[in-house]
């Protein structure tokens, strides 16, 4: 499975890094956030648990807002991040 970075609607983008392990998910997220404009939202889909904590800490450091986190057991994790 390759990385997917798609526009879902105006101001909403989706980055799917399922199947990737550290450091790929957090690095792809960083690069994707750099490309977004202020107020736009990135929906991150990943399945590497340790990357999730790095992404949360990265958002705190960069000041980006995590709007929503969904982790339903047995499935991929979703995180919606707003660029501030």
């Amino acid at each position, binding site marked *: 499975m390759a990385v997917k970075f798609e526009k879902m609607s105006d101001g909403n983008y989706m980055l799917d890094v399922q199947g990737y*392990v550290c450091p*790929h998910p957090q690095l792809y997220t960083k690069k994707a956030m750099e490309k977004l404009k202020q107020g736009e939202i990135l929906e991150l889909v990943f399945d590497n648990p340790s990357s999730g904590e790095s992404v949360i800490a990265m958002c705190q450091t960069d*000041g980006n807002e995590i709007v929503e986190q969904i982790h*339903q057991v047995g499935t991929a994790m979703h995180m919606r991040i707003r660029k501030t």
Partner: protein
Amino acid sequence: MQNAEVKVAETFQTKTFEYRNQLRAFTVLGFFAAVSLWTLTTDIRYVYLNAYLWFGFIYGMTLQYGRFCMASAIRDLFAVRVPRMSVGIMIGVVLFSLVSAYATAVGKSTFHASPLGIHSVIGGLIFGIGMVFTGGCASGSLYKSGEGSVSAMLVVLSLSFAQAFFVDAGGWFDSLAPSAWIASALAKNLPASLTPTDGWFDLFIAGHIWNLSSTTLATLTRISDPFVAAFAGNSLLNAILPAMLLLVIIYIGWYRKGYLRTTGAGKYNGWRTEVAGYWSMITASKKTAIAGLILGIAAGLHMWVMQGLQNRFGIFNAGELLGAMGHTSGLSIQDTVFDPGYFYITTQEAQAAGWVLHKFGADNMHNIFFGLENGLPNPILNPVLWMSIAIVGGSAVMALLHNEFKWKWPTLEIAVWAIFGGILMGIGARIALGCNIGAFFVPVANGDPSGWLFFLGMAAGGYLGVKFFNWWIERKMAKEVTGLKL
């Protein structure tokens, strides 16, 4: 209404999934308990192997709980400016050093200082690049294997076989050894069966490493009181002060700006704000900090227990115990096996791979690494390998209990990075005489300055690896965003 029904169905599925995971977790735990019970009822001397097993189990659970990984510590700092893991590692170093100091002071430490030399920096550099490519350090790859990551399993395999090949490589590899190493190795008058001048790694060990001195700061400071020497020399000077200094550098370089932004410009109150910020960094990730604390204490206690068992059985090495139990196959020519008496990762994995190669006909007992020092015991009877297997098991139990276990098959790209990075980690670990645990975590906490040399190399390698990956991912992202108006 329809949505509500769907939610009920999802909740039922979730509960079923959780119960199934709990059942699997207790099955794994039951397996290790059964191994312990069976071996102990067969021969009480198996308690020595079981001590490694259960400390390994604790390490595995703790590593998974705190996602404790030194690749993450260095990589996330340089790649995404996240200091969470670096802080956890330093907490672990400080706690481990205090417990180790007490064990040393009362004569219950199994620690032996490593030779001090540039090989630690070079090995650390190669290891550091490799661990960024694989996504996990040596211990991190074991705990991630327990989470079901097949790419981490590939790392463990490639790291193991790379070491086993590397320590026995001859031919053109021998031309890498300076003539001084050959002369020095010959002067050691080693048994002819070891063929010490055949094989680059043998020449490296006998012609170079054995000529280096090793020491701890407790020895260097020449303090006569064992408690003052251990706590002031080993713990304070070699572990606590450098760790605190590194945390100050991390605070200033990576954390302070973000902290001051969240507190607000108008609320800055001089040193009080700075101290509060420093403390906020240390407590930012409670799970990592708790993992560092448990690992530090467990690693110190592990040494204590192993020393106690060695005294109890009147042995210096597990090879003596295995021999007395009738398991003489695979012992070195000194009747020894690898038995550090503390937390270790890579050498036992090299032994396991070496044993497999031996079974396939490799003539790999005529070298210093296997033939003289570590032996090639059957993996089922390799005491330290019990620890590695239990690390995977402990991690699996913790991951299952938190519903984080999932078989994850790597993409082809990730599999290639895992194998290539694992080879680099294996070569680096052998040059440095250990990995992030045996050449860094354990030495720095026990007063051995060679651990900081390895750390320097590992950090530099991590930085280079991140630089490369930044370029690689930027290049791939450029393809992904083609057509997107960003």
